[in-house]
């Protein structure tokens, strides 16, 4: 259709939504997590500015460590951030969530301990190099991820139902791997990954999380993972007719989720140098799902924003730490969190955001809408 072809009927010109800076901001996907973060920051500033002090102390081993609530938040959010990466991809491609990640972390952590300790629950020396334990953990976790992936992608079982299997069985499998014993590792180097490396005052999990973010950023930039997962999540039929294999893409996101679980599980066991099968990473899957939701990505799949999910994970940890600081007892924590979550989720609901956008436009100076022809 060259320009020589005269179109007798022109399609109605599309309106460019301009509006004020404010309304554009509120429409942006990343607005909600950032706004939530700001509210939490302001709240803490007013309540107790000492929340933001960071001091350089020395830990029991005499190494310099940074301490303060902000450091705690960055440190403790690491696992959640890593899981949120995987959960975002799983959600985008399969339009559902993996609820087995907590149980899968128990398995991954258990595998690490089993490889390092052998059958000895209090080993004097490690039975294998730490890197081997990590790699085996990755392999096993990815296999379990693949199990979930096969159920979802090829047997077309609803993600929540499919991953319910591992959710139910995971912690028993984890206990079984170590014959129901709780091995404790005394080797100091193993603790580096979940705590501090001597001489470096920033907790190691922060670095691991940053590495994961860099890796996923690179993957999204240098491969078509982002395009394919979103395309499959939005419209699997047309994706297939454009040469994409929707089932395989769904499958692969669950395998990636498995890898994220392995890294998170490794950090978890390193923090304590041991594992408690029934409580390790308990309910973390819900926080990971929440991180995705906070980030504004639809839980029914399709478009996603990785940065927003990661920010969402930090917001959740920020909230948890804030509540702890105000001496909310840990048993009451979920109730408080729920209240905040209700607010955030309602605010980020498209219906509400649309309304907010209209409000914002009404209160902004009127500008003629630009038209393109």
């Amino acid at each position: 259709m060259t320009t020589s072809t005269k179109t007798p009927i022109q399609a109605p010109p599309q309106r460019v939504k301009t509006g004020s800076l404010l309304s554009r901001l509120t429409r942006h996907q990343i607005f909600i997590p950032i706004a939530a973060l700001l509210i939490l920051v302001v709240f803490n500033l007013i309540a107790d500015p000492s929340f933001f002090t960071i001091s350089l102390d020395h830990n029991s081993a005499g190494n310099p460590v940074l301490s303060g609530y902000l450091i705690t938040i960055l440190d403790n959010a690491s696992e959640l951030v890593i899981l949120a990466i995987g959960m975002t991809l799983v959600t985008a491609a399969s339009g559902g969530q993996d609820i087995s990640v907590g149980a899968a972390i128990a398995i991954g952590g258990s595998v690490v301990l089993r490889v390092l300790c052998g059958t000895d629950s209090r080993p004097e020396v490690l039975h294998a190099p730490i890197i081997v334990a990590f790699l085996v953990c990755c392999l096993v976790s990815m296999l379990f991820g693949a199990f979930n992936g096969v159920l979802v992608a090829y047997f077309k079982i609803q993600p929540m139902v499919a991953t319910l299997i591992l959710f139910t069985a995971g912690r028993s499998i984890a206990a079984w791997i170590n014959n129901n014993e709780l091995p404790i590792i005394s080797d100091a180097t193993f603790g580096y990954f979940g705590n501090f490396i001597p001489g470096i005052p920033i907790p190691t999990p922060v670095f691991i999380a940053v590495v994961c973010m860099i890796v996923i950023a690179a993957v999204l930039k240098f491969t078509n993972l982002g395009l394919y997962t979103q395309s499959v999540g939005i419209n699997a039929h047309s994706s297939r007719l454009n040469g994409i294999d929707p089932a395989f893409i769904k499958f692969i996101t669950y395998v990636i989720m498995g890898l994220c679980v392995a890294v998170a599980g490794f950090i978890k066991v390193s923090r304590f140098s041991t594992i408690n099968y029934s409580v390790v990473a308990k309910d973390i899957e819900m926080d990971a799902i929440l991180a995705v939701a906070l980030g504004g990505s639809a839980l029914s799949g399709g478009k996603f924003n990785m940065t927003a999910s990661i920010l969402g994970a930090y917001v959740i940890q920020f909230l948890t730490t804030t509540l702890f600081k105000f001496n909310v007892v840990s048993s009451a924590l979920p109730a408080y969190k729920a209240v905040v979550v209700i607010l955030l989720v309602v605010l980020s609901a498209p219906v509400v955001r649309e309304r907010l956008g209209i409000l914002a436009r009404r209160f902004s100076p009127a500008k003629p809408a630009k038209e393109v022809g």
Partner: protein
Amino acid sequence: MQEGAVLELRGICKNFPGVRALQNVDFTLREGEIHALMGENGAGKSTLIKVLTGVYPKDEGTIYIRGYDGPAAIKSPQDAQEMGISTVYQEITLCPNLTVAENMYIGRTKSSLTNWKKINRDAGELLDTLGIPASPTQQLASCSIAVQQMVAIARAVDMECKVLILDEPTSSLDEQEVAKLFNLMINLKSKGVGIVFVTHFLDQVYEVCDRITVLRDGQLVGEYVIEDLPRVLLVSKMLGKELDDLDGVGKADARVGYDAGGVSVMEASQLVSTAGIKPFDFSIQKGEVNGFTGLLGSGRSECVRALFGADRAIGGTLSMNGKKVRISKPLDAMKHGIGYLPEDRKRDGIVGDLSVRDNIILALQVMKGFFRPFTRAQAEAFADEYIKLLDIKTASADTPVKSLSGGNQQKVILARWLLTNPVFLILDEPTRGIDIGTKLEIQKLVLKLAAQGKSVTFISSEIDEMLRTCSRLIVMRDRKVVGELTGDDLTQNKIMTTIAGGENP
């Protein structure tokens, strides 16, 4: 009411925002007749049925039902049912895990205590009288689809029904099953039930029906006794083309000739796919435009889907430029230089939430490979080039494609395939539901592509359009190829007679 009528609709109008779905439609159903309701997609058949069964409220008009004085007030499907109008839909709406008897009586027993013995006995009697080969205590899922369909009818009939509406009941049945269903229909007819039969299959209409009502574009074309309406006339009424009318229009156009001795770009022999079409042959030459024609549901789309690997082929061979190829999935076809614009734009074409840019580059990107994404600048250049070339009206390349108008969405998908520089492009209903200007643009584009040496297979419900663009037409009826027309045979008359089954007007 007319003598013998069980149901009369007078002057029914129904508007949807922007669409006049039904305009002043009359319909009369007599006692003990099978009455076919015919029309192409969008003719208003389903709307009429939905008005009749209380799914949609009507805007104007009156409905008379025998046994009720004055206009009948049908406000809900329950009302319709109570007045003796039962409907059996295309998809079976029963519960496969319950027994046949349970399915027939579920939700209809008045007391809270259920006498299953009695119900099973009653069900058995009814099944016997209707000649349905099923046992009341059998689980429904263990019956064939046809029998399930019949159970659904039995359920409908047992509710003291005077009017039975069958909406495409035969679309998932094989020939023997259809025969069984027809026996049941004739049986019911002899009991005085009036049956409204909606179908796309012409043969079936002429096999069992007594009368035909034809709708087109929401208007009544007419009611005919079957003996008075030869097939070819029926087809012409459905398509809205008089025989001999406009014959030969567009013949002088720049249609690209078919050279009987030329080399085929693509050739299929005895290809058959999982979609339930009869094996067919196909070939297309370099620079040729050909097309599949036939009524809706005749298998046109299924044929091209098989060529593209969208439906899995289960028999037959494909070759390109004389060499045998295997196409088991769309990516295989794409790698051989085939592009496919699907019939259902929303379901199979656009990826709604993705931007216009991503939608344009999608196919080429997939062909390039997972690990080799286009840079942002490349993608932008492609998108801008085609937005300009096809004159796509969009706010920007970043706009989600779902917010574009239908015609512009279609252009985006065209751009997607043009970008892959295909040797063979399949366009399935590229002009459906888009404005006239864009339609002409697309037709011109097709001819231009052919002039550049590309091969195009074109499907359209509008015969005019096919005649203007195609040099060869493959005609389909009831899921099989029934003819191939070239040269002087490319006339509306000839196409319609071939669609109808070869008899001359």
